[in-house]
């Protein structure tokens, strides 16, 4: 084939194309990362408006703003959009931007497939959102779409919901394959697996979880489709099936899914805390093993979401104990973050503030999770606002605070400009206060017995609901400060240095700010950021 061979062509010198085609046809990891991040920000606001609709309705007892059917569509769409449209794509966006820069690669391993993973999402969410306008309304069965609510009693638009989920699954699987191929194959010479930054490690494990469970989600929605339209009886006991089967298959996907949304957040926080404590990360190896343990355990805990459904006693006990086991590796991580800060030279720039809030508030969410893990106690908490409080504590001041921390932490690197620090601090404090005012009272509501997903409630719940709604609007509107700060940082601002932060470590900080279009044209020389340089500078 000699005549066909050309010299391998250099990848360094083509810059971005101009106009809209740059974004439509791009194969560049930074462009695709940017697309993911803006997409998720948009979805965050759409999902946020739905959340505010829910909270506005719950401001007072009685029905005032929306009909109950529409309320159901709002809770369903809010959950689906925040999980699949906001949090997951945001972490994929970070992965795209950061993994090649952190491991010294020119780009992602499979750049065209990378573009495909992204561009499926706007189409999938167009379809998902269009269901709200269809006859019979959009999905109204809760984001967990339990059968038979989502089969026998579903509106016709459920068919489009199913296909939208299929498209999101395809996108996630391709994105995850790309991340794994990049991490396993594109590291700069000399960087061993145990030398990788923790953000890269957590994403490697997250990508494995995605590939393992997104197909299971595809399987369960396919069974729904068959039950609805092709006469099968997977979830209908009259034909020998079982509605509880739906819950088992769904949560076999669903539980690893919640770790898909938190493990990259662990990675972000593990990058930020050492930087602003000006110490290396405490217990790097144990962090890696803890992350892997959490991922493995996530496959054998799923039925703790179903304690109240009527499982055999042995099942209840098994899933209770395995769930509690997860507290061990999670505790290791929290301990390590705190130990990293111990006797560090701490400063409190905005990324650090968000990271610290993450550690404290995520831990609160973890503890309420432990309470829910106790099967007999869960019979009381099940389907109450206590559950809502729990998972919002791990998702909002957990995943989303980590995303905000990451945005402020790497924004100067991405744009070449410093963001406005006082505006960022304002955003932090408003968010921090808003989140706690919103979700903390929900613990009390839940323990007092207020059920979730109901547009009306008994009078004794009125005060806490009013407080929660006030907090939700405070949190929601303070995000406008965030957007304003991001946009002004992209357009102008103080020139950022290459290192940006005094304590920064890792290969991405050796590149200029902003980095060149293709990160590393040649593999960079690798020095251990965690292990040899004690102070990280």
């Amino acid at each position, binding site marked *: *084939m000699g005549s*066909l*061979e050309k010299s*391998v062509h*250099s990848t*360094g010198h083509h810059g971005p194309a101009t106009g809209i*085609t740059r974004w439509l*046809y791009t*194969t*560049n990891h930074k462009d695709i990362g940017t697309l993911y991040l803006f997409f998720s920000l948009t979805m965050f606001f759409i999902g946020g408006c739905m959340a505010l609709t829910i909270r506005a309705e719950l401001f007072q007892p009685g029905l005032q703003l929306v009909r109950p059917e529409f309320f159901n569509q709002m809770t369903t769409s809010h959950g689906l959009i925040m999980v699949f449209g906001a949090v997951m794509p945001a972490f994929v966006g970070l992965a795209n931007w950061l993994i090649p820069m952190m491991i010294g*690669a*020119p780009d992602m*391993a*499979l*750049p*065209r*497939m990378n*573009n*495909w993973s992204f561009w*499926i999402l706007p*189409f999938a969410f167009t*379809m998902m959102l269009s269901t709200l306008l269809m006859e019979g309304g959009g999905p109204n069965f809760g984001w967990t779409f339990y059968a038979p609510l989502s089969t026998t009693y579903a509106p*016709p638009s459920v*068919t*489009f919901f199913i296909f939208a989920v299929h498209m999101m699954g395809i996108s996630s*699987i391709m994105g995850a*394959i790309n991340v*794994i*191929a990049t991490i*396993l194959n594109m590291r700069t010479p000399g960087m061993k697996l145990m030398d990788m930054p923790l953000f890269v490690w957590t994403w490697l494990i997250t990508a494995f979880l995605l*590939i*393992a469970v997104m*197909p*299971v989600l595809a*399987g369960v929605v396919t*069974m729904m489709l*068959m039950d*609805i*339209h*092709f*006469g*099968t*009886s*997977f979830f*209908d*006991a009259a*034909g*020998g*099936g*079982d509605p*509880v*089967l739906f819950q088992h*298959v769904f949560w*076999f996907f669903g539980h690893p899914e919640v770790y898909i949304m938190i493990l990259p957040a662990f990675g972000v926080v593990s990058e930020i805390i050492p930087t602003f404590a000006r110490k290396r990360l405490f217990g790097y190896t144990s962090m890696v093993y803890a992350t892997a343990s959490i991922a493995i355990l996530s496959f054998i805990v799923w039925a703790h979401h179903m304690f109240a459904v009527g*499982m*055999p006693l*042995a099942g209840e006990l098994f899933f209770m104990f395995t769930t509690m086991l997860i507290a061990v590796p999670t505790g290791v991580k929290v301990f390590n973050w705190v130990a990293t800060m111990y006797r560090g030279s701490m400063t409190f720039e905005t990324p650090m503030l968000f990271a610290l809030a993450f550690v404290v508030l995520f831990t609160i969410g973890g503890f309420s999770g432990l309470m829910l893990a106790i099967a007999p106690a869960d019979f009381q908490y099940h389907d109450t606002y206590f559950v809502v409080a729990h998972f919002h504590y791990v998702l909002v001041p957990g995943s989303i605070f980590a995303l905000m921390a990451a945005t402020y932490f790497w924004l100067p690197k991405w744009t070449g400009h410093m963001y406005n620090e006082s505006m960022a601090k304002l955003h932090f404090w408003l968010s921090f206060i808003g989140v706690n005012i919103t979700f903390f009272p929900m613990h009390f509501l839940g323990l007092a017995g207020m059920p979730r997903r109901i547009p009306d409630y008994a009078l004794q719940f009125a005060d806490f609901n009013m407080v929660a709604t006030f907090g939700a609007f405070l949190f929601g509107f303070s995000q406008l400060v965030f957007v304003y700060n991001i946009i002004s940082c992209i357009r102008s601002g103080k020139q950022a240095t290459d290192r940006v932060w005094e304590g920064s470590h890792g290969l991405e900080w050796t590149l200029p700010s902003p980095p060149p279009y*293709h990160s590393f*044209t040649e*593999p960079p020389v690798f020095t251990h950021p965690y292990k040899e340089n004690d102070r990280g500078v």
Partner: protein
Amino acid sequence: MSTQAYYVPAQSRWPIMASASLFLIAFGAGTLINALSADTGGGLGLTLLLAGALCMGLILTGWFGHVIDESRQGLYSDQMDRSFRWGMSWFIFSEVMFFSAFFGALFYVRNLSVPWLGGEGEKGVANMLWQGFEATWPLMKTPDMTAYPGPGGLIDPLHLPLVNTLLLLSSSVTVTFAHYRLKQDRRPQVILWLILTIALGSAFLVFQAVEYVEAYHELGLTLHAGIYGATFFILTGFHGMHVTLGTLMLVIILLRVIRGHFEPDHHFGFEAVSWYWHFVDVVWVGLFLFVYLL
């Protein structure tokens, strides 16, 4: 690890076009299925679906053609080759998990929920729903025979399914022979073994179709026949779709071999398809054991 520069492709139109086609396919299929269920005819949905599928076919042909060209121009380093290998391996893992969902459902109904409905085991109280219902597997009498008339008969595992098992197992052997001959650069024999593999795969599909016709028309074993029919058709149906795709991939590989593509030490496209074929084969062994035989 290689220090050779990594090939980063220039901008590409394929992915966004593929996304749009995927949307057409999904939206068309949704419209069609809803129209069929509501008995309102499926004109628009069918048109969208077919248009989407046609576009997707053209796009994938163009996209893969482009990749093949790049490969034959020698743009791909060994490192790129490894990326493809990781990509294909994890894709097959995702397929394994897809089938696991259905196997999991099968084991759950067989071992837990159907016995409970029949009054056995810890949740046997469920028998109060349909008193007198007896749990058997395969489930011939469903709890509610008017809603879901159980199957009248079953496929005999020792006839067509056994033949199909032998067909698929031998096709895994023949594709491996083709691979060995490719490594020795003996092309005529590669072509011969590949044709044989394709023939075995196609014969499998024909027999599977015969079996489906028999199940529907003579045995009353349908999608609607309760949980046995549901698990039977979803598992064998998705497997059959994978065999179809695998056969199509083998045909493309055959055409490429005839055109002189691949080298004895550089033929990942061939290997990827043969991995996929082995995967399809292994799934069938699971099916034969747990759906037909046991």
